């Protein structure tokens, strides 16, 4: 009964989304504001409806109604309630519903904003959001019904949406249970964060399309969506970091990022989103790069849907692709259609997106931001090609190939290093405003010289700590050229960023006669976007330290040990003390080793690497980890090599500096919150240009 109710709600919401699209279109073309308003209200209704559907499914999951196929697939009697509830996004059909629900929450939030100054955008924002929602709801209704039930017929037991002829409801005694790898806290939070990032990127895209359709191609759409973009970006970033932490804690290979296609699928919209966040500043400040910003937002949306498709369709088999189904063609048609329509609109409005400013120097802020965009696009190109080339190879040669970490690291590594360097230098550059007298009196070369000298004048002081860092690294015996370059760039960017804070706070402190720290606080408060951005940069720098540490200096060893024997690695001695096997309350069999860790002969701590075998036979390897800011000692009980009470194989990883990666991510998130913190929107924001007006404005 509840399952049927849930499906009915899904169908109603799907029909409502179709109605919303039709009403918005009719309202616009017939110049009837009441229809647009009706579409807006219909869109508002989708959130409570989908909340009801999601609650319905959650109730079925929590109560273990195994008659429902999805409940059977992702839960079992021995699972704790919180896991049963979070299993909502543990399988394909549930996660699609969850996606739609989050989408409805965001569209509701955007629909409830003040539209007084942007009435012409409203029908198109509603339309784009509703098309996206209708697509995902359609997947649930037509392909992946989370409320499908088991029925016994003459042909056997199968799941159907509607009762088949002569069917008798069939309820298995227990379910399959959630994949053990998904039972980790990181994996419980990771998908919602990614989905939040994905769905919130739909909002800037919707406004961009609205701007293209209406012809209101000034920077208004960018100003409205700036915060949405930051929110999307922070969620996507959080999702990526949590995914990395989950891999580190659960997958048992001593790393956090394996360049798996599905990881890359989530990373690609982040890359375009980050490029977009930077390049919109050029449009806002200088009225330039309008075409490029449109391209970036269209690409981000396409990559969001592409990422969801890869994650959910299992088209590229990988560790993430747990769920597989036949929704691929629908996804491809949707991605293709939205992309083609978006590009067609962009071409149609190409002339109205001409730059209003002029580039004066390759050392100006806008030129360096362009370079930043090139680097992000370069990494995107590597990622995209790396993901699709095995498929292309299969099509071209019939043989599939693996494009693994060495490929990505070699190709993208130099671009990441260049980005770190640019992150330091770009804030020292000046925006390309130029006085008329300068413009008249200086030729191109003089202008380049002027901008370059401007950077050099500010650069030399922060460069001193970077040079000292390089010398210190050499004295410490580090000879890895990539590590030396990376850490020197990190030192330079850190000192420039801190110098920027110091310079501005000191100037304010002197001018306002304020205490230095008060000046720093007020400065950041007055220009949250800029200083939040710098804090984000500091977070990225710390993350870079962690990445350089683990990528360049990780060591590992594996040995089989008898009780009392030990392994020595990177100055640590790890001694095998004992092994215990027992059954946990949730039914899994746990094999746990006790290891003593010594350094310089002194006992430091005990570690408990273990492996769990779940009722369905699925194993999970949990490392014993000793974490400090200097390094991680990461010990695995290598269950796959065969453990006996006499002898057990252990793998020990020494991961230098890896915790800076996690620490940096906290600072990164804090910086994003500072940058995204709401300001009072001015009553009359400047609209740079209104070159064309739509024929109809619902607010008029």
């Amino acid at each position, binding site marked *: 009964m509840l399952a049927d109710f849930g499906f009915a709600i899904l169908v109603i919401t799907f029909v409502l989304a179709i109605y919303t699209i039709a009403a918005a279109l009719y309202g616009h073309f017939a110049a009837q504001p009441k229809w647009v308003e009706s579409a807006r209200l219909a869109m508002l209704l989708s959130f409570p409806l989908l909340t009801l559907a999601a609650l319905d499914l959650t109730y079925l999951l929590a109560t273990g109604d195994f008659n429902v196929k999805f409940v059977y697939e992702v839960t079992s009697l021995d699972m704790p309630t919180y896991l049963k509830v979070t299993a909502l996004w543990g399988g394909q059909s549930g996660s699609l519903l969850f996606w739609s629900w989050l989408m409805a929450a965001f569209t509701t939030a955007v629909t409830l904003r003040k539209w007084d100054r942007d009435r012409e955008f409203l029908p198109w924002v509603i339309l784009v959001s509703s098309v996206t929602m209708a697509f995902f709801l359609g997947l649930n209704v037509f392909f992946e019904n989370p409320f499908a039930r088991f029925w016994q017929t003459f042909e056997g037991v199968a799941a159907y949406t509607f009762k088949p002829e002569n069917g008798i409801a069939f309820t298995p005694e227990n379910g399959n249970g959630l994949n053990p790898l998904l039972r980790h806290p990181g994996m419980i939070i990771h998908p919602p964060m990614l989905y939040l990032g994905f769905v919130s990127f739909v909002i800037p895209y919707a406004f961009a399309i609205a701007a293209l359709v209406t012809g209101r191609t000034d920077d208004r759409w960018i100003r409205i969506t700036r915060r949405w973009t930051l929110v999307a970006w922070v969620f996507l970033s959080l999702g990526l970091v949590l995914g990395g932490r989950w891999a580190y804690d659960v997958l048992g290979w001593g790393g956090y990022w394996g360049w798996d296609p599905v990881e890359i699928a989530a990373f690609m919209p982040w890359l375009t989103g980050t490029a977009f966040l930077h390049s919109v500043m050029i449009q806002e400040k200088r009225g330039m790069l309008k075409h490029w910003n449109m391209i970036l937002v269209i690409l981000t949306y396409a990559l969001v849907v592409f990422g969801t498709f890869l994650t959910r369709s299992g088209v590229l088999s990988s560790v993430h692709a747990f769920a597989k189904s036949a929704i691929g063609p629908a996804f491809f048609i949707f991605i293709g259609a939205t992309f083609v329509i978006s590009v067609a609109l962009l071409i149609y409005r190409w002339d109205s997106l001409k730059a209003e400013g002029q580039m004066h120097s390759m050392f100006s802020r806008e030129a360096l931001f362009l370079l930043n965009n090139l680097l992000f696009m370069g990494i995107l190109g590597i990622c995209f090609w790396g993901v699709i080339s095995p498929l292309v190879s299969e099509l071209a040669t019939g*043989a599939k190939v693996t494009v693994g970490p060495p490929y990505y690291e070699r190709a993208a590594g130099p671009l990441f290093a260049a980005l770190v360097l640019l992150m330091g230098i770009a804030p020292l550059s000046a925006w390309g405003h130029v006085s008329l007298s300068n413009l008249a009196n200086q030729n191109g070369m003089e202008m380049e010289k002027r901008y370059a000298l401007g950077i050099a004048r500010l650069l030399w002081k922060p460069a001193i700590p970077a040079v000292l860092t390089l010398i210190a690294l050499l004295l410490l015996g580090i000879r890895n050229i990539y590590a030396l370059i990376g850490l020197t760039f990190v030192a330079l960017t850190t000192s420039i960023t801190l110098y920027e804070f110091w310079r501005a706070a000191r100037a304010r402190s002197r001018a306002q006669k304020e205490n230095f720290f008060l000046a720093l606080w007020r400065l950041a408060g007055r220009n949250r976007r800029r200083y939040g951005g710098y804090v984000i940069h500091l977070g990225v720098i710390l993350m870079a330290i962690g990445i350089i540490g683990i990528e360049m200096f990780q060591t590992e060893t594996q040995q089989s040990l008898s009780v009392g024997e030990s392994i020595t690695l990177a100055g640590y001695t790890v001694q095998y003390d004992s092994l215990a096997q027992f059954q946990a309350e949730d039914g899994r069999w746990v094999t746990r080793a006790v290891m003593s860790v010594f350094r310089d002969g002194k006992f430091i701590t005990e570690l408990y690497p273990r492996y769990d075998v779940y009722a369905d036979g699925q194993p999970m390897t949990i490392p014993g980890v000793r974490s400090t800011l200097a390094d991680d000692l990461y010990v695995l009980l290598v269950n796959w090599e065969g453990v006996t009470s006499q002898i057990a194989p252990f793998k020990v990883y020494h991961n230098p500096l890896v915790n800076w990666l996690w620490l940096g991510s906290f600072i990164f998130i804090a910086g994003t919150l500072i940058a995204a913190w709401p300001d009072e929107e001015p009553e009359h924001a400047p609209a740079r240009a209104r070159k064309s007006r739509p024929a109809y404005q619902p607010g008029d």
Partner: protein
Amino acid sequence: MKKPLAVFLLVFLLFNLWVGVASAQATTPSDDEVNAIAKELFCPVCENTPLDVCPTEACKQWRELIRLKLSEGWSKEQIQDYFVEQYGARVLAEPPRQGWYWLIYLMPVALFGVGIFILYRAYQSMRQPLPLEADEAQPPASPSLSDADLRRVEEELNKRK
């Protein structure tokens, strides 16, 4: 006479035993030696999983196969070639640098080159004075732009910073 013969036989036996044990020790590669090669091979069954961390029974057997080949004196390249021959190029962490596969390596370089070209062209085009700005950029001596006007424009520009 019998005693020296017995001693000789005993010494001979012990020597052979020692040589046997020593050679067995010398030719049994360590887990680390096996993993160093397994790390660069991908599981032919479970995609995107390096062989050194793959928990399946098949991969365990493949690691033992690497150990066996190493003990027989095979080099890393020979073992990799053997796996490619048996399971195809997909077992390598990267496509082999030959034939069609070069496209996989060259495409990002080509794309980046195109990106640099586009950036250069964009930069060049954005350096061209805009029609409006070109008019404004007339020398200050122009009778149409007084000093007061110039100051106002400067102020406006400063406001936009």
